[in-house]
């Protein structure tokens, strides 16, 4: 495959044709915040946190879905990008019901980590306090829509890795939500294998195991790399994570 040379934050890098900007940045330890992206799942470019500036293009493009091109000049961290990323996290915080102090995922939450990473000191937008549902019909797990950021990781891991496709996305705009089956209770679906992959890839406390209380729900994402490596390379390498 052809090698592409590009400039990121003033430094020259080479990359394989077809690689994403995010993949190149990760290889070279250039930090870019992400939320919907998860190694091992398809990329959807939904959260827009990984947006970068590319010279000659007036629009900001997501690093996860944008492929490298010869001669690209990319900025990954500018005041404009930092401002937009902070706005995205603030909007996520304002459109859900995120109460860290009483959340199962407190201190183990990617949304919380992102708030620190982007320096979200306070949210200026009015909080919406939407009346969202909580589905505790499943035998093992709970889906609390109040804490869902619609990253669709659960949808993708269930479809692409487990092959069950229990989850999907319904509605539009502010009414958008994750649904199980055709919109009924999670516990009533015929397709759920109770594997728990969705729970482990969920970045917040939206999906959690029954019986855990505040700060107890730690997500272990190492399994995903383990399964993917095993399937693709036939190497069963255990992950410490």
């Amino acid at each position, binding site marked *: 495959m052809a090698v592409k040379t590009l400039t990121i934050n003033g430094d020259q890098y080479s990359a394989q044709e077809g690689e994403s900007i995010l993949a190149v940045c990760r290889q070279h330890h250039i930090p870019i915040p992400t939320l919907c992206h998860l190694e091992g799942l398809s990329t959807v470019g939904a959260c827009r946190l990984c947006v970068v500036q590319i010279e000659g293009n007036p629009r900001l493009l997501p690093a996860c879905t944008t492929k490298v091109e010869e001669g690209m000049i990319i900025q990954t961290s500018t005041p404009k990008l930092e401002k937009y990323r902070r706005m995205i996290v603030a909007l996520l*915080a304002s459109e859900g*019901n995120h*109460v*860290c*102090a*009483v*959340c199962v995922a*407190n*201190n183990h939450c990617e949304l*919380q980590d992102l*708030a*620190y*990473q982007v*320096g*979200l*000191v*306070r*949210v*200026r937008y*009015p*909080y919406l*306090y*939407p*009346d969202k549902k909580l589905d505790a019909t499943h035998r093992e797990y709970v889906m609390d829509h109040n804490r869902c950021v619609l990253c669709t990781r659960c949808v993708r891991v269930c479809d692409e890795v487990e092959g069950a496709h229990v989850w999907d996305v319904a509605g539009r705009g502010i009414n958008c939500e994750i649904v199980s089956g055709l919109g009924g209770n999670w516990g009533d679906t015929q397709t759920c294998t109770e594997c728990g992959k969705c729970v482990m890839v969920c970045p917040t406390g939206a999906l959690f195991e029954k019986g855990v209380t505040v*700060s107890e729900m730690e997500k272990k994402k190492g399994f995903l790399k383990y399964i993917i490596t095993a399937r693709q390379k036939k190497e069963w390498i255990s992950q410490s994570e």
Partner: protein
Amino acid sequence: MAGTETKPRVATVWLGGCSGCHMSFLDLDERLLDLADKIQLVYSPIADVKEFPQNVDITLVEGAVTNDENEEMAHIIRKHSRYVLSFGDCATTGNVTAMRNRFGTEALIDRAYQELADISNSKPNDHTLIAQLLPQAIPLHHVIRVDAFLHGCPPTPDEIWFAINELLNGRIPVFNTQFLRYG
């Protein structure tokens, strides 16, 4: 006490919160003695002062703005304070206090004063005696201008110590990753 007039005038206020932030403030323990030498505490739930005074240098505000009394107090605080600090997660985000927002005030009052009442199940109706709930509990900075934010539920004594000392030294405390912390 000699020289108290020259010490910075500090106030702490308890709005719609659980007083946990003030408990954490008291957990400064022996550092409270140092603080007592440095400041003049002019208004606080732990000091018996009825009216919020004028010319306050630093005011720490715990809790969300959840009723009309809080709202009125917030404006008084802003008017008479040089620096206003949102003290803890309820003041900063609404936090637990704001969890009632999705239910509506009527349902909330019914639940608290009637459904769960053991003896008397009358609802508060004289709002000259008991503050009236606002439709929603909201963060302090959605009501008045706030100069600095101290996060945490509650903020730790170390974080409080850092914030107060920065303000006493005339600096707005900047919370880097060390102190920026929700929950």
